[in-house]
């Protein structure tokens, strides 16, 4: 069902409006195990989205290589589902048709029609089949986006801050939903987040990135038993050590163009 994704010595350089080079990813190495739940955290601009887009096949590195089960990632694939930071739904399609989009695009709609209602229930959106994206809440929209990606039965699901715009209650709900879906579907999850608690609560491993140049500065194993308790002492000490790691990174001398 799931698969190994590896990122080998990848560099991605952008040039900004003034023509300056921005090293969005610098010598990034990462191996993601099948069925693993991995979180990528780090401050804004450290290259989290860039890395996720490369894994998805939406973008290509200048050097280095990304592979899935040993074969090179050259293009997008329904095997790697993607949930955008925000606004990824098609506004002209209702919830049902947004979720059905992948089936229709891959021309397997007729055979799998009955899957749609199952996936709608799976993300708890019964009764909203006919609603349009602007008529539902941000949290519901992200759940639609997740169901839309999962209906293609991907090997990996890439989530770019799917909870970034949500209040803390909706956020906690959606986190539990994502965990549940992960357990049910046994797929690899790669989650980008700003939120340390979220990363600890959900992941097997946490990848910490730092900006300018964007690189992986540490990978932490979270070997806490599930279900995890956000107030537990181990949880809090892990949180503290991650925070300390960031402070350490902050304290290091920065290039002069840092704000």
């Amino acid at each position, binding site marked *: 069902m799931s698969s190994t994704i590896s990122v080998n010595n990848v560099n991605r350089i952008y040039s900004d409006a003034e023509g300056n080079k921005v090293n969005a990813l610098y010598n990034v190495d990462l191996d993601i195990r099948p069925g693993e739940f991995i979180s990528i955290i780090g401050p804004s601009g450290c290259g989290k989205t860039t890395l996720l887009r490369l894994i998805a096949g939406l973008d290509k590195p200048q050097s280095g290589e990304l592979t899935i089960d040993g074969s090179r990632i050259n293009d997008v694939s329904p095997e790697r589902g*993607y949930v955008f930071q925000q606004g990824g739904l098609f*506004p002209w399609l209702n919830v049902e048709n947004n979720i059905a*989009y*992948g089936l*229709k*695009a891959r021309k397997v709609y007729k055979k799998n029609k009955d899957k749609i209602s199952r996936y709608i229930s799976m993300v708890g959106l019964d009764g909203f089949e006919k609603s349009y994206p602007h008529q539902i809440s941000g949290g519901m929209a992200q759940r639609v986006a997740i169901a839309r*990606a999962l209906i293609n039965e991907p090997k990996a699901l890439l989530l770019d801050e799917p909870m970034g715009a949500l209040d803390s209650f909706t956020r906690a709900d959606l986190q539990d939903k994502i965990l549940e879906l992960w357990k049910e579907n046994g797929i690899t999850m790669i989650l980008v987040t700003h939120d340390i608690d979220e990363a600890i609560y959900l992941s097997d491993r946490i990848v910490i990135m730092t900006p300018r140049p964007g690189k992986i500065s540490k990978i932490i194993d979270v070997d806490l038993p599930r279900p995890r308790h956000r107030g537990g002492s181990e949880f809090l000490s892990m949180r503290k050590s991650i925070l300390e790691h960031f402070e350490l990174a902050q304290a290091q001398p920065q290039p002069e163009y840092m704000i």
Partner: protein
Amino acid sequence: MNGQIALKGSLRNSAEKEKPTAEKKAKWGYRHNGYYALKALLTISGFVAAIIINIVFPQKAAVEFKTYVINALGLSVTLNINDAYIFVLVALILIFTGAGIVSLKDKEKRKKFCKAAAFRFALGIALAVWDIGGTKLQVFAQPFFPGPAQVIEAYLADGEYVVQNTLYSLRLYAAGFSSGVLLGVGTGILIGWFPKVYYWVFPILKITGVVPAVAWMPFALTLLPNSFTAAVFLIVICAWFQIAFLTAQGIQSTPKQNYEAARILGSSQLGLIFNVAIPHAMPDIFTGISSANAMAFTTLVMSEMLGQPGGLGYYINQSKVWSAYYKVLAAIVIMAVLFSLINYLIGRIRKRALRWQEGVLKK
């Protein structure tokens, strides 16, 4: 568990308590039956007043009230033009009464009907004033401003001929506008999607698009086999440019993320055009269609006036030669009704196609 049951019980109780009172005493407004009846009365009272004035007000000016024999539906009716005017008023009263009854059950329609009441009343009064000024006293300059009875006379005198010309206009419009829409949307998609097409075709579109379509008339009339195809051609180009322009814009403004999402979900290149770019461009396509529609009316009437063997524009021209201004007015009334109907139809189609936008945009 207990608490839940108790809560449900209390909810039901309060709902039962409120319901009967809410039904008995609808607030004074369009939901209230008395209010609705008053508005219905207001709606028809303008037209009733117009009838009363027509009957009671003395005929001062010397106007010849011709009588026509009408053969329709196997019946032969002899009708004086003033009676025909009264018939029209009665018909309006019946239509609005019917509308009032049909709207009775539907909340939204009820609201609309009440809202329209004052305007419909004013319409009746305006007809009465026109009747006095145009027919009874003839205070307006003649023959430029005939009364309502004379305008109706045009339909009685020229009935079949007016219908023929109206159908001619409709045929011209249908042929020209539908091909214009198809061509416009088609080229718009090509321009919006293929950068090469954009590079070569868009500048031509931009420059020729500002030229009013009728300017091409001399070429159209000489180069095309007959005047009908010439007029169709003019309507096509006037609709084409506008629609192509906006369609291309709608396609090009599709957010990159929509394409990316579709590609990841397994969409083919063709799928990106038909299931992403075109749906995204739909609002712009309809804006193009609406504004092209208004220009198509202008082009239609102008080309009819300048070189067609039929149509409402042709009828206007012909009537003007005989100084039959009441016929000119009659044709204008038909245009107003016909074009409004077409606009309404397009509006309905647009609303259906863009249902997904409902509530997003400010009304």
